[in-house]
């Protein structure tokens, strides 16, 4: 699911929760309002009743007929209000059913009728007085009880609302925390994968990154896939660069190889001519020896051609356990003639009991040959080439040191020599040799370093992780 979708869903969940809470609050407040309105009516009724009872008492104590008239006026007014407020009261008051309301109204009506009956008679009989007093008392009690109960209900609703408000805030808070926690964990998890891939790319493990593709489900995974694709492209480019670098070294190698082929060809030609011109003079053993020589010389040619083909062939990187010493010897063999022609003496020192290295031997050879060719070109008047193979002090890396006694590299260009297309040889160089070498060594989890002093020579140091034998891996 995309991150955008996830955020949207989270926002919708939050919005629904908030809407529910608001809705609940709205209903509660509306209820409180209705109740307050009803309470007001009952409160008014209560006050009126008290006034009416006061007037009733005055009449019975002082026999003042105006008191009864006043009572009736207030009573009738209140009765009309009560009658028209049926809806408010029945729906607003919790403890007032339709029946209760009708009874209240009936009692009120009866009370007023009794009062009116009392006004008509000059002398109120004791039974009527008793009835009036009783009914008045019942009405006052009923309305007071109703008022008390409703006030209690309202205060209950309000405190219930306060609690609900606090609970709602807590729920929103918890939802927020949970959602963010989920988002952070999800994002960090995805970003970790991305970081891992980027580190792998910067360590040169392009192939591993390129093959680890999954169908992307969110924005970060799309970015991760883009990194994988980029690594694939980089790998392809690197392969191309590798090949161009190889072809560039091949060009230099070819002239040496041509000379190397010239010698066995010349030998075969000489043997054949001698064989033909001295045929009658040669004994059987001579003839056999000559043919043996021809065979040996053609084998020599075959080997040279095989070496060259082996070097130029484009192959996927294949790691095998090899002895670095053997690789160095083999690579020197390929340029031996070049060294001879250029009057460069080579001195190879290989330490004893070196652990094997897991490398693609032709690639390492390519790197070494590049360094030799550079060294030869740095020594136009000839010189010495020292190649040492040794183990570092920690016994973790096999170190190959290639040192020449040539012109050296100027300090200001030293930082750029591993850059692609950087060359000091103008049209003669492609600027790929060292950059490709750098790429190859990095792919072997190794290191290539350079030290140089102008006029005194240059030293290249290659470090390749040694295979630890005691661990058995």
């Amino acid at each position, binding site marked *: 699911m995309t991150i955008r979708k996830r955020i949207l869903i989270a926002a919708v969940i939050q919005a629904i929760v908030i809407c529910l809470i608001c809705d609940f609050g709205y209903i509660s407040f509306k209820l409180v309002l209705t109740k307050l309105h009803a309470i007001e009516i009952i409160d008014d009724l209560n006050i009126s009743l008290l006034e009416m009872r006061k007037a009733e008492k005055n009449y019975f104590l002082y026999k003042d007929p105006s008191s009864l008239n006043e009572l009736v006026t207030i009573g009738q007014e209140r009765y009309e209000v009560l009658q028209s407020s049926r809806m408010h009261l029945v729906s607003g008051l919790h403890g007032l059913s339709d029946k209760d309301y009708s009874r209240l109204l009936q009692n009120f009506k009866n009370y007023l009728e009794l009062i009116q009956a009392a006004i008509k008679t000059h002398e109120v009989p004791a039974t009527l007085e008793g009835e009036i007093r009783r009914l008045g008392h019942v009405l006052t009690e009923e309305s007071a009880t109703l008022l008390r109960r409703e006030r209690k209900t309202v205060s209950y609703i309000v405190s219930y609302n306060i609690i609900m408000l606090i609970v709602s805030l807590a729920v929103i808070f918890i939802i927020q925390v949970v959602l963010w926690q989920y988002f952070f964990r999800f994002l960090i998890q995805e970003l970790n994968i991305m970081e891992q891939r980027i580190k792998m790319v910067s360590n040169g493990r392009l192939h591993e990154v390129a093959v680890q593709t999954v169908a992307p489900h969110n924005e970060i995974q799309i970015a991760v896939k883009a990194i994988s694709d980029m690594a694939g492209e980089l790998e392809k480019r690197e392969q191309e660069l590798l090949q161009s670098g190889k072809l560039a070294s091949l060009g230099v190698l070819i002239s040496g190889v041509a000379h190397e082929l*010239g*010698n066995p060809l*010349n*030998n075969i*030609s*000489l*043997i054949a001519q001698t064989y033909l*011109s001295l045929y009658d003079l040669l004994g059987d053993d001579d003839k056999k020896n000559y043919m043996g020589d021809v065979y040996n010389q053609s084998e020599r040619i075959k080997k040279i051609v095989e070496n060259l083909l082996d070097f130029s062939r484009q192959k996927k990187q294949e790691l095998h356990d090899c002895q670095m010493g053997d690789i160095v010897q083999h690579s020197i063999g390929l340029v031996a003639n070049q060294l001879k022609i250029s009057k460069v003496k080579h001195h190879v020192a290989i330490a004893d009991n070196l652990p094997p290295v897991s490398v693609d031997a032709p690639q390492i050879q390519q790197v070494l040959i590049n360094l030799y060719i550079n060294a030869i070109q740095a020594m136009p008047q000839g010189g010495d080439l020292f190649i040492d193979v040794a183990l570092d002090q920690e016994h973790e890396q096999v170190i190959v040191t290639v040192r020449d006694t040539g012109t050296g590299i100027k300090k200001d260009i030293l930082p750029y020599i591993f850059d692609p297309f950087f060359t000091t040889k103008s049209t003669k160089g492609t600027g790929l040799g060292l950059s490709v070498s750098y790429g190859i060594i990095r792919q072997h989890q190794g290191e290539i370093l350079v030290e140089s002093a102008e006029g005194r020579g240059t030293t290249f140091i290659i470090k390749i992780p040694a295979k630890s034998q005691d661990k058995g891996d």
Partner: protein
Amino acid sequence: MAKRIIVIDDEKIVCDMAKKILQAEGYEVETYTDSELALEAIRSQRFDLVITDLKMENVSGMDILKEVNRLYPETRVIMLTAYATLDATIEAIRERIYDFFPKPVKIDELKKSVKKALGD
């Protein structure tokens, strides 16, 4: 007395074949695959003709030519080479090279050149 020829080439087969061919022509032939030893031989004794390869380890054909010119100006030098640059050719001519043979060497032409050089 047979004329003495020294053949110098770091390829043993070149030496062996040249020896066989030239011996068949009636010459006395000494061969060296190590040019340093050859230079010592030249310094210690006189040869009637020097046949040498140009590109060799340690001492080159050009060094041999110069030494022969210095010690025995009348001795002729024939040079064999797999691939001669223009610079090397000019330098050899200046050093009065007698003849120049690109490899692969044609034996008949070499024989002719040797005969001419020795005035036979």
